């Protein structure tokens, strides 16, 4: 199993210093320029399309098409976890890693069928907004906001680890030049890139979001696919279609790579997959685009295109992992067993593969820069989702209802600094690889938010008490396996309780398989035994499924208000 596999690697290398073996750690000018150039390009294009003053907001502008929306979904989605982590988990744990490919694509089907269009009809700004308005409760809104913040934080831990590891390839060990109070090379690099991310966020506020994301997606996918094609070609593994041709390598790779369930039990595979599928449907920074598209038809097609653009990367990641594993085995040593490939080396397998294939530095640098850019862009999206949860949902909706726009900006900025600092502190010593860290965020989304969205949209009798009971028990259920396995280093100095039964049947990475049905059940039972929600709420839920087309400028609440001939009552 994944966790077991990692603890089989020398523990010292894991906790004391993250140093990917085999990776050329030195300052490289061209890759460094590539990283800086890529970030500047993002800012530059964003500036070209920056939000000009809109003199009259009632005049319709140009709308964003399905393909553009799909690419933006792809860019927002493609983080260090997809770019680096997925190939890493396949390289380290073989078939187990495919749970990520399957989980992260299947999730979009569930989203497409059950949620994208309905979300658009409900018409809210943020995930906590939806939860607060659907269940008529500020407590529910606050819980959803806290969960959103927590998801952003855990997700960002994985991104920070990715930035730090790949950053070492690009800029080398900066602590050798400037001693930074005993920080290791990884820690210094991770901190540096997290600070860059926060700076990027401060600059990118006014920029045209969608255009910028389309560009980000294009650059990332080109860097990834070019890296894969050239690596496969020059190492002689493949010609023009490495995504299929890597199959010929399977027999040569170790059994750990190709044997089903050698790197993780059948149960763990299913549990991880389940968490990732339903976590995808509950991730606030993914759902946010569906509230804003023009109508539900665009919502559906954007989802479909998003899936297509994501698949381009996901069909390629296993090939990259296979090439990386083969090259590592040839040039560095046995991939599996003792000592084997470390988690740190695994997490940079995409960069390592291009380097080991003997490609020129600029090309390896391009692949590395793509990994960093993916991490920075997604972290920016996550941090904005977290800041809106705090400044809009908690501050402006609950604490200070008369908050001015400037006050919201201030609270938003402070919460971004807070989540940034938290991420840096906890990412100094990440105990898990990128894919696992991000997987925890998916478990959380699947356990706490997915049931709220799913039952909230599909069952009109789901009520406030049910939602509150569901979210509270969901948060507890998520924390138990997390602490049991010693994440966050909070229990027993990072060893956790280590309860064997829990580790086997409710692993943190797949805890949703047990917890999500439990939360759904709790929510249903509590909703049944308590009072039904008000008629207005029920009508809103029905409106989300009405066969009549809805005007694009109305939300379900508007329609219900029109039907009942009165304005909707204020939230309690």
């Amino acid at each position, binding site marked *: 199993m994944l966790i077991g596999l990692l603890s089989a690697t020398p523990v010292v290398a894991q906790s004391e210093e993250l140093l990917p073996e085999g990776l050329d750690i030195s300052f490289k000018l061209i890759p460094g320029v590539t990283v800086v150039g890529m970030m500047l390009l993002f800012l530059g294009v964003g500036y070209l399309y920056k939000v000009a003053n809109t003199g009259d907001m009632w005049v319709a502008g140009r709308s964003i098409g399905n393909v553009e929306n799909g690419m933006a979904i792809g860019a927002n989605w493609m983080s260090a976890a997809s770019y680096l982590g997925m190939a890493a988990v396949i390289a380290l744990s073989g078939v187990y890693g495919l749970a990520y490919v399957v989980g992260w694509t299947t999730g979009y089907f569930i989203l497409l069928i059950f949620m994208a269009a309905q979300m658009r009809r409900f018409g809210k*700004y*943020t995930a906590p907004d939806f939860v607060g308005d659907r269940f008529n409760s500020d407590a529910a809104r606050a819980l959803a906001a806290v969960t959103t913040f927590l998801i952003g934080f855990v997700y960002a831990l994985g991104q920070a680890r990715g930035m730090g590891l790949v950053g070492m390839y690009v800029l080398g060990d900066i602590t050798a030049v400037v001693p930074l109070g005993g920080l290791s090379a990884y820690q210094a690099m991770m901190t540096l890139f997290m600070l860059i991310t926060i700076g990027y966020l401060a600059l990118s506020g006014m920029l045209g979001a969608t255009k910028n994301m389309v560009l980000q997606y294009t650059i990332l996918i080109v860097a990834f696919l070019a890296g894969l094609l050239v690596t496969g070609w020059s190492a002689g593994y493949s010609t023009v279609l490495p995504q299929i041709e890597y199959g010929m390598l399977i027999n040569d790779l170790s059994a750990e790579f190709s044997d089903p369930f050698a790197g993780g039990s059948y149960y763990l595979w299913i549990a991880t997959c389940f968490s990732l599928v339903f976590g995808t449907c509950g991730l606030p920074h993914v759902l946010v685009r569906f509230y804003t598209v023009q109508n539900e038809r665009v919502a559906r097609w954007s989802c479909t295109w998003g899936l297509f653009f994501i698949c381009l990367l996901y069909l390629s990641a296993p090939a990259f992992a296979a090439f990386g594993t083969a090259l590592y085995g040839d040039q560095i040593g046995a991939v599996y067993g003792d000592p084997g490939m470390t988690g740190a080396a695994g997490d940079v397998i995409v960069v390592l593969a291009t380097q080991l294939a003997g490609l020129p530095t600029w090309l390896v640098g391009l692949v590395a820069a793509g990994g960093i850019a993916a991490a920075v862009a997604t972290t920016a999206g996550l941090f*904005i989702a977290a800041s809106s949860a705090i400044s809009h949902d908690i501050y402006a909706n609950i604490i200070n209802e008369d908050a001015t726009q400037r006050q919201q900006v201030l609270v938003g900025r402070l919460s971004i600094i807070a989540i940034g600092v938290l991420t840096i502190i906890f990412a100094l010593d990440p105990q898990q690889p990128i894919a696992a860290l991000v997987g925890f965020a998916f478990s959380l989304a699947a356990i706490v938010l997915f049931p709220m969205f799913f039952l909230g949209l599909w069952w009109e009798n789901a009520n406030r008490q049910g939602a509150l009971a569901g979210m509270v028990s969901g948060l507890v259920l998520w924390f138990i396996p997390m602490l049991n396995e010693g994440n966050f280093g909070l229990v027993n100095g990072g060893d956790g309780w280590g309860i064997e039964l829990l580790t086997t049947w409710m692993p943190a990475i797949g805890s949703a398989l047990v917890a999500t049905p439990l939360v759904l059940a709790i929510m249903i039972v509590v909703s049944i035994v308590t009072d039904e929600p008000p008629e207005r709420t029920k009508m809103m839920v029905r409106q989300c499924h009405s066969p009549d087309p809805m005007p694009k400028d109305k939300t379900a609440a508007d329609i219900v208000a029109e039907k009942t001939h009165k304005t909707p009552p204020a939230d309690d």
Partner: protein
Amino acid sequence: MYERILVPTDGSRVANAAVDHAIDLADKYGAEVHALFVADVEAVNYSLGTEQVDRIRQGNFQGMSELREDAEEATGYVKQQAEALGLQAVERHAGGRPHSVIAEYAAENDTDLIVMGSHGRSGVRRALLGSVTERTLRSTHVPVLVIDYERIEE
């Protein structure tokens, strides 16, 4: 002397304090009152998310129900006060950086006077929260009448 008076408003008490002054002046001079609400794009980005910024750009303001309600409430208050005295009132909802939108609007619409409220903040609070009024002063050539909210409190 004053034919068109512009009142930028976000619906806050500070802004509404300025409305009384503007209406009184408009009544004396028989001026037209322009009520302008500016959705601060930066605030939208931090509090509602980057996607919503695009939405403003696309002109899908109608679909943004909460912001729309805020805007209508803010300018509606001005219109109501003006019409009670039989004055002409124009409502406008815009998005962008407030001070530059206000300056642009004033220039385009031959405004004679801008009346706006200020918190009268100083020190750290001013540095952190800034002042739209102060920035407007620096971006426009139109006369600006600043109503200090703190003074009114006394």
